[in-house]
């Protein structure tokens, strides 16, 4: 399990994130919410040790992250980046990269890696276009490939940076359903989301970051009742009860 203790992060000496503490519990989808520029992506990147901390700690199964090698970290946490280079390789090869942290030099993939990849492709619903080249795939299909790659990395914690951006509504819902299934398998999912309605509808917990500080961390219902999102975004959030539970909307 990943635990953040009083974590501060930023660029150079300028702190963007101030003293954030939270636990990424297995079995839960946590939505990280907040206005643009409030430090969500910086927080994610710092947890992953992609950029240095300015203070506080990231504990990975109780061990400070700086004591782990990049490879050990990669066996604990998966990162679904917001933007990335897409080399023109097949989707299957892309997913195979998820097994990289488990191989030592000279990186020969083993039979179990290939099995894992096939399983991940099926799991993410990407098996039908696994043989095709990344450049030929639509945005939604690519995101499924990246999700399969994340699954192939087989870590307890998965951090996603705006995984639904640029996707049509059907694919957005699919991504959220996949996140839920990951949590049901006993993984912790932390996702930066901009779509409040999607986040509150699907997440177990909402963490709200305002100006780099944790303004709220709790259930979506409590977040709604505390009116924290109204303050953070300057909107009026409302909800209606439907047969699928609360649906949120704003105006």
């Amino acid at each position, binding site marked *: 399990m990943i635990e953040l203790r009083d974590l501060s992060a930023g660029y150079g000496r300028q702190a963007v994130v101030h003293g954030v503490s939270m636990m990424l519990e297995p079995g839960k989808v946590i939505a990280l919410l907040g206005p643009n520029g409030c430090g969500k992506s910086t927080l994610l*990147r710092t947890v*992953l*040790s*992609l950029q240095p901390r300015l203070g506080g700690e990231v504990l990975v199964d109780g061990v400070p992250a700086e004591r782990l*090698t*990049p*490879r*050990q*970290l*990669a*066996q604990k*946490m*998966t*990162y679904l*980046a917001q933007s*990335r*280079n897409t*080399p*023109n*390789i097949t989707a299957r*090869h892309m997913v195979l*990269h*998820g097994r*990289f*942290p488990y*191989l030592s*030099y*000279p*990186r020969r993939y083993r039979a179990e890696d290939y099995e894992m990849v096939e399983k991940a492709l099926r799991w993410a619903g990407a098996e039908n276009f696994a043989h095709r*080249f990344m450049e*030929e795939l639509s945005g939604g299909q690519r995101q499924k490939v990246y999700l399969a790659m994340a699954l192939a*990395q087989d870590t307890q914690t998965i951090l996603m940076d705006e995984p639904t951006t640029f996707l049509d509504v059907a694919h957005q819902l699919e991504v959220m359903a996949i996140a839920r299934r990951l949590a049901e398998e006993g993984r912790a999912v932390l996702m930066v989301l901009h779509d409040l309605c999607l986040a509150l509808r699907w997440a177990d917990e909402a963490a709200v970051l305002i100006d780099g500080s944790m303004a709220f961390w709790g259930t979506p219902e409590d977040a709604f009742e505390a009116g924290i999102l109204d303050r953070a975004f300057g909107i009026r959030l409302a909800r209606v009860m439907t047969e699928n539970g609360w649906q949120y909307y704003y105006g």
Partner: protein
Amino acid sequence: MKSWRTFCTRRVSRRLIWAALSVLLLLSAALSLCLGAVPISLGDTLAALLGRIQGPQAHIVLYSRLPRTCGCLLAGMALASSGAVIQGVLGNPMAAPNIIGVNAGAGLIVALSGVIAPAAVAVTPLAAFLGALAGVMLVLFIAERTGASKLTLILAGMAVSAIFSAGIDAVVTFVPDALLGYSDFRIGSLAGLTMARLAPAAGIILLAFVLVLSLAGEMDVLMLGRDVSQSLGLRVKPMRLLLLALAAALAGAAVSFCGLLGFVGLIVPHIMRRLVGAESRGLILGSALGGAVMLTGCDLLSRILFAPYELPVGIMLSFLGGPFFIFLLLRQRGGRIHD
């Protein structure tokens, strides 16, 4: 068929491409050994190689054409695979050994060692590697300081190359004997190569090539971008430096005996990416084969077109490679519009 490229990246056609590359390699090597100012039959060439005949023909084959053919194969392989590594690691299709300061750095050191220790042929490739490494590290340093964009990298490379080239010119102006056949060195030529000069460079090239191939998996991951590759457990900075150092060793060792041949390192990886795909292992192997074929073929043409006179191979390479590259660019544009 969706496009030429999709077709080319299918499995069956890939096998054909590998087969064709291998045949072309053997063919170009054989022709390079047999043809020249004095044509020698394949049988006699083989006999000379096996030491079964003596005389002027055997002498030509063993002491002129064999080193030259080996030099072409090695330099083509080294420069093209170096280009593939540099383009992959920097994620920059415009990068190549001659563009990011590798060739000029190696060239300057070769010129300097011609002044300081003209007899030390064996250490020239090693010195060239150090020059190449200095070139690429300087370019990388400047580019990172200025934001590490693809454009600043190329601009920094041009500036560093210009400075090093001026250094080569200065050395040759003050000590005209520093580079025997200066014009050949600048254009790139493999005339008058000996096995003694080739052997140390060959060692470096083969070693660096094997190491690069063994790091193909790391290169594939690097191409996913810094954040993603680091989150997959790769130590990005050291790995980038290691791969660039190996690329510098490949190109530097080649420059030490063939001069400033530029174009192979830029265009062969581009051609191969279309033919064998973007996965690193295949791309590096394909570039090595393609580079060897291209340089050997061009060298052959430069020898036989105006025999008994010959052109430096660099001229032939640019005359043939340039238009072909433009053809590829035009084709790519067309493909994009119609896709």
